[in-house]
């Protein structure tokens, strides 16, 4: 086990290195520079700024320096969006806000999505299944901003006399509701579909027949015998999805004016804020790598047949 984890950590470092290099080259390949704004500065100013932040040097040299700093956990400072504020500081302040909303979103998505998936599988072919199929297909195919805007419109005063929640995120419990609903809706629908498929597969297995022949109650058959076997595809999806959701949704944070990390993923690129692009990308990549490792360890917990050391069944 220790050997396995060591191997995985080593692989994680290599993966991260590749992600860093790719991002670094790609972001430098994008035309434009951080200094462009409404008033275009003079070439002399741009040159001076480039020299100050070391952007006048060849990309490969810049990368070397960046990697060297990274070894000391120095992510650099923002050069545009929050000028001269350390990137690490930005991430560490913004992440908890996004993570709070994300965690609630993903928890409700799991608590509702998985049982709904089980229900749809159990009632396959009936109107319950069809209704859930319609809802979930809608949820999966509707863009996030539609869901967010609809919620915003309906529940914050768009309909006469129905102003249940504040429009803006202000940290109060009430203001959490809509962003969490909006952010969790897609994963909930996706999870529900995933669970349904996996459950249908499990329900048709012979051990379910055995469980029925033993005289077990339906609830126990579904939730003990079928669900545990159906969990593998579900947690496979959940691992990276948790990382994405906890890092915040760009759209949801925009729509509800949440000062979270999600918006920085997109806006740092728009602004060519190079250190911030690197910082957020590395953070998300590392998060996903960790989640995938946790998922792999969970496989073993869910299904004793899985032998991690051998890398498969």
């Amino acid at each position, binding site marked *: 086990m220790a050997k396995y984890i060591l191997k995985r950590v080593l692989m994680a470092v290599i993966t991260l290195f590749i992600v860093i290099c790719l991002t670094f080259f790609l972001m430098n390949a994008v035309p434009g520079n951080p200094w462009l704004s409404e008033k275009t500065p003079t070439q002399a100013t741009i040159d001076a700024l480039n020299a100050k932040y070391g952007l006048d040097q060849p990309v490969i040299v810049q990368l070397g320096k960046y990697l060297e700093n990274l070894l000391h956990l120095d992510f650099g400072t923002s050069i545009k969006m929050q000028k001269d504020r350390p990137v690490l500081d930005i991430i560490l302040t913004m992440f908890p806000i996004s993570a709070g909303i994300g965690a609630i979103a993903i928890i409700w998505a799991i608590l509702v999505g998985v049982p709904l998936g089980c229900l749809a599988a159990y009632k396959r072919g009936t109107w319950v299944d069809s209704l859930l199929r319609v809802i979930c297909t809608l949820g999966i195919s509707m863009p996030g901003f539609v869901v967010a805007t609809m919620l915003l419109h309906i529940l914050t005063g768009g309909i006469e006399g129905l102003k249940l929640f504040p429009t803006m995120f202000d940290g109060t419990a009430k203001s959490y509701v809509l962003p969490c609903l909006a952010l969790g809706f897609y994963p909930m629908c996706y999870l529900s579909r995933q669970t349904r498929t996996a459950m249908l597969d499990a329900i048709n*297995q*012979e*051990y379910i*027949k*055995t*469980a*029925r*022949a*033993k*005289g*077990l*109650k339906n609830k*126990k058959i579904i939730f003990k*015998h079928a669900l*545990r*076997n159906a969990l593998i595809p579900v947690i496979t999806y959940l691992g990276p999805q948790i990382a994405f959701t906890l890092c915040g949704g760009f759209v949801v944070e925009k729509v509800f004016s949440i000062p979270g990390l999600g918006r920085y993923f997109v806006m740092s690129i728009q602004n060519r804020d190079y250190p911030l692009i690197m910082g957020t990308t590395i953070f998300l990549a590392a998060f996903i790598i960790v989640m995938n490792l946790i998922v792999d360890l969970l496989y073993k917990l*869910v*299904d*004793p*047949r899985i032998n991690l050391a051998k890398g498969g069944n």
Partner: protein
Amino acid sequence: MENNQKTGKLLEVKDLHVSFFTPAGEVKAVGGISYDLNYDEVMGIVGESGSGKSVEAYSIIGLLQSPGKVIGGSITLEGEDVLAKTKDEMVALRGSKVAMIFQNPMTCLNPVYTIGNQLIEALKAHDKHVSKEEASKRAMEMLELVGINNVEKRMKQYPHELSGGMRQRVMIAMGLICHPQLLIADEPTTALDVTIQAQILELMKDLQKKTHMGIIFITHNLGVVAEICDKVSVMYAGKMVEQGPVDDIFYKPGHPYTMGLLRSMPRVDAESYERLIPIEGSPVDMLNPPEGCPFAPRCEHAMKICLQKMPPYVELGDNHRAACWLRVQDQIEKEKAGKTENKEVGDNG
């Protein structure tokens, strides 16, 4: 194991009809079969794939899956009408009074739970008040009873850590843990190696003697039937074409299908030049079953009437009957002969 031996009728199936309502039409999987099973008796149900033998057994235990439905007849278990029971009553019945074991032990145990967990669960499903220690003690006793050693270790093992034969032993232990009166064994040895098959059969015979339960043994293997059964029902296309004591079925078969089955079975005492004779033709299309005797299209003795009318059962001996026009013919001839004999006797007198 306690020895509360009961006698008499354990199970009575009367004119059972089971149909599957598929988009292509109604499939009459079981078309009116009847039999009795006494306590302490082993009955074999023999037939080829699709003959309805498993469907028939599933109806007894209420495991028929939609679109399958019992549409007629009655099933009486220890005097109680099984078909009139509610869903909850059926759940309570399964595993306690009637247990079932299946064909493939490799897939019938849940791969993600330990043997112990699955055994104890079977017990707890019907005995809510049993303590943890007591349950696990009884589970281990069951495992020992079915010939598994090192039980404490086995309890903590997962199904994939056991061999096929061992898993089938676990399945049997699981079925018997609540001391059922009736065990339905759906081809329990088919998926096993021949040597293991013999062991499992030996075990089941042994357990049956100890517990005096009734067993319905579903198989397509006549060798297995000879080994373990007291009586046999032969099924073809959802109909019971012949039933009788095991010796009668083997030595005095009355139905051409039974004869065909016997001829297609390898025998130790056969001469080396003898070949196995397969039954020509293919099984009936159950969506469009032929009128008359379902076996007629494959039967070498088929007569005109066979294709038109289903033959009635003809008694061939004690509890031995077959549904075949040939036997009806025999009977008529015998009656005629009897009459002439009687006449002669009368003349003489």
